[in-house]
């Protein structure tokens, strides 16, 4: 027997302030291998064409469809309805500015994050089109790829206690990004330079260790390991710079 699903969906269009925020209810007959991608599109096409939500690749690769599904942030495209109860409550991700209904503005948040961490290879070398590429150990390339698999879906930010109370917190995703560049020999930044970016409450000291980020990461990234690594590395850097200052003061 196929189920009749009930969807309770958060509705609010900030461009239409006359209509207050509310929850709308939609009913849908469940079909074989139904995902939230299929369900939400059907609701929009058959019941309410104004419903706002985001999908892009619909294949778990681009990260567009993060939302809170029965209380837990996740990707809607690869959430199968058969794994959910008959009543499904969908909310937009918190921590990001609401565009409307289930759609949030992750682009602005992430752009600010990668401007803050200067998310690019810092090098003094000029690219020489006539030369062979610089060599790299394949194992290292794979380690870098491992941290670069983040799709910026925003689930870890939405699940983070610190990010919800501190809008300037870099989040697990920002710290993971830093870890990726620390690992990369092409980036010439020193530990001290990294410390200036993350050695504060917006960075590594803001984390309350609730582990929400790693629990909800749809790519299974080792986010807490990166934070732990950064804390140890940065504590060491901080210590070195304190010792350095101390020596300097005695001169």
């Amino acid at each position, binding site marked *: 027997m196929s189920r009749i699903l009930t969807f309770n969906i958060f509705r609010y269009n900030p461009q239409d302030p006359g209509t207050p925020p509310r929850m709308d209810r939609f009913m849908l007959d469940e079909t074989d291998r139904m995902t939230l991608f299929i369900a939400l599109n059907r609701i929009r096409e058959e019941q309410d064409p104004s419903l706002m939500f985001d*999908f892009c690749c619909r294949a778990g690769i681009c990260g567009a469809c993060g939302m809170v599904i029965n209380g837990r942030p996740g990707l809607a495209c690869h959430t199968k309805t058969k794994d959910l109860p008959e009543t499904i409550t969908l909310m937009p991700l918190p921590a990001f500015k609401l565009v409307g209904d289930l759609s949030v503005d992750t682009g602005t948040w992430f752009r600010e994050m990668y401007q803050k961490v200067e998310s690019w290879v810092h090098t003094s070398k000029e690219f020489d089109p006539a030369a062979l590429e610089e060599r790299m150990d394949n194992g290292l390339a794979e380690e870098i790829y491992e941290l670069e698999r983040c799709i910026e879906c925003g689930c870890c930010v939405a699940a983070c206690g610190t990010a919800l109370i501190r809008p300037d917190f870099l989040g697990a995703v920002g710290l993971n990004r830093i870890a990726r560049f620390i690992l990369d020999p092409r980036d010439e930044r020193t530990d001290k330079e990294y410390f200036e970016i993350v050695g504060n409450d917006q960075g590594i000291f803001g984390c309350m260790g609730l582990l929400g980020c790693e629990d909800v990461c749809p790519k299974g990234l080792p986010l807490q390991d990166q934070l732990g690594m950064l804390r140890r590395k940065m504590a060491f850097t901080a210590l070195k710079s304190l010792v350095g200052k101390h020596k300097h003061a005695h001169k």
Partner: protein
Amino acid sequence: MQTIYSDLLCIGAGLAGERVAIEAASAGFDAVCLSIVPARRSHSSAAQGGMQAALGNCAMGEGDGPDVHFADTVKGSDWGCDQEVARLFVDTAPIVMRELAAWGVPWNRVVPGESKYFKGGKEFTKVEKKEKEGLITARAFGGTAKWRTCYTSDGTGHTVLYTMDNRAAQLGVVVHDRVEAISLIHDGTRCMGAVVRCLKTGDLRVYLAKATLIASGGFGRIYRESTNAVINDGGGHVIALDTGVVPLGNMEAVQFHPTGIVPTDILVTEGCRGDGGTLLDVNENRFMPEYEPDKAELASRDVVSRWMTVHMQKGFGVKSPYGDHLWLDIRHLGIDHIRTKLREVDEICKSFLGIDPAYQLIPVRPTQHYSMGGVRTNKDGAAYGLAGLFSAGESACWDMHGFNRLGGNSLAETVVAGNIIGKKVVDYLKGCEAIFNSKVVDAAVAKQAARITALRNRSNGSESAYAVREAMFDAIMKGAGIFRNEKDLTECVETLQALHERAGRVGLKSNGVGPNPELTLALKIQGMVKLALCVAYGALKRTESRGSHTREDFPERNDRDWLNRTLATWPEGASLPELSYEAATKVFEIPPGDRGYGGGKIISA
């Protein structure tokens, strides 16, 4: 009305758009990229397999070079490509891959020593040389003589796009995300920018620029079953076609990828077959060697898709509620290989099919995948018809792919074309003095504002944009799929013409306030039907089979009559595109000949 000026306006912030913007920014020009989604969600991110460049570093790539790459590309195109462009592409590709390495792409590298690989389900051994250790390595892809596809596991598009977007941010390229260009601003001879709708607020804005680039990706979403992201609905093509003067090239050349999974049509990479995966039928027999004894699963995509369809038509398909399909078998590659080198495939199988590809077969069928056609440009990337308009990447018909593109050549094209065309855009900007005619700008805005009002007030009718789209899906899937013939194409064209009229009577059900998604579709549905008509009408008129364009009633490749490129323009008020033709290539490095796979007769020039 907010008006934003820049030197270069890129419509699209995927790999091609950002690569051109980077070139302009490096030369000191202001570049603004528009994107429907945050730039890092562009469909470039979904490309798994890799980028072709003849580096010749790995053992199976030894002896490779641009000439070999060139020959593969021309054969792959079934002699439909512009050979000057293909030459530019193959010569520049290795440099661009190295540049990406310098910018931060974690390419997989050569590991010296003995290792195993699979071909056609059999195990072989190769030895990588010590002196090549740490250089960029490559994997096999279809239609190539050498292993040439550079990759980062199977997240190549993702890592390259993130690196590109980082580089763009570093150079101060401005990205406006969640905006959509809904019309070009032009005076019939020169392009001045675009009218743009903000998808966060619904407001209209004007972007004026000395040069405008369309880099909006493919238009696969005019098909129901497509591997494309949902944003690939041809918006960039529509605004070009709507000018009435910019032609689209070879729109009938639509590629079907052999391995879309059933039923969701998500792509699993060609890397699966490149790394030794095989295709099996209902009896779990490997069938490709029967049709292609030499290349088997590694013939070009058009060929493999066609044989799969033929084999299913013979009754060897696996029956399912979603229609027939075949199996992709990668079990023999081993769990380590699958969990690392084919990790996205592993995840897709688990998340969307609930199967483990290390132990189970993957249900696949040919699915719409790539548009070889697009905004016709010259070899500098300049669009025909309007000065100051350029195009690059999948949205363009530049045209190195002709009637079929090889796997790994499109992702490479985005950055290689971006590099080459970016330099040409810079030359153009250096010699450019912009004059923006405010009457032209005001008229362009007023026209779009009036369309929005009419849709919201239902003053032209109350047809549903979604219903028109469904009917378009039905028509084009039936008439202009893998196999085509006169009867079905004629019916398809007639149906689409009626739909074109219906699309003119669309009105919104909802209020259309703000970033309303129904309005977003309503604004372009008629344009999408126009694109479908360019495909179907072009296919009806092209009475031969070339690359991905297969006419059952004209099975020969006819070089005598059809060694040319279709150009489609849409005059204002017309119900069909106007078709004209130009020579496929001005220069022949390789005269038309046999591809070496795919069979088929050739009528010589």
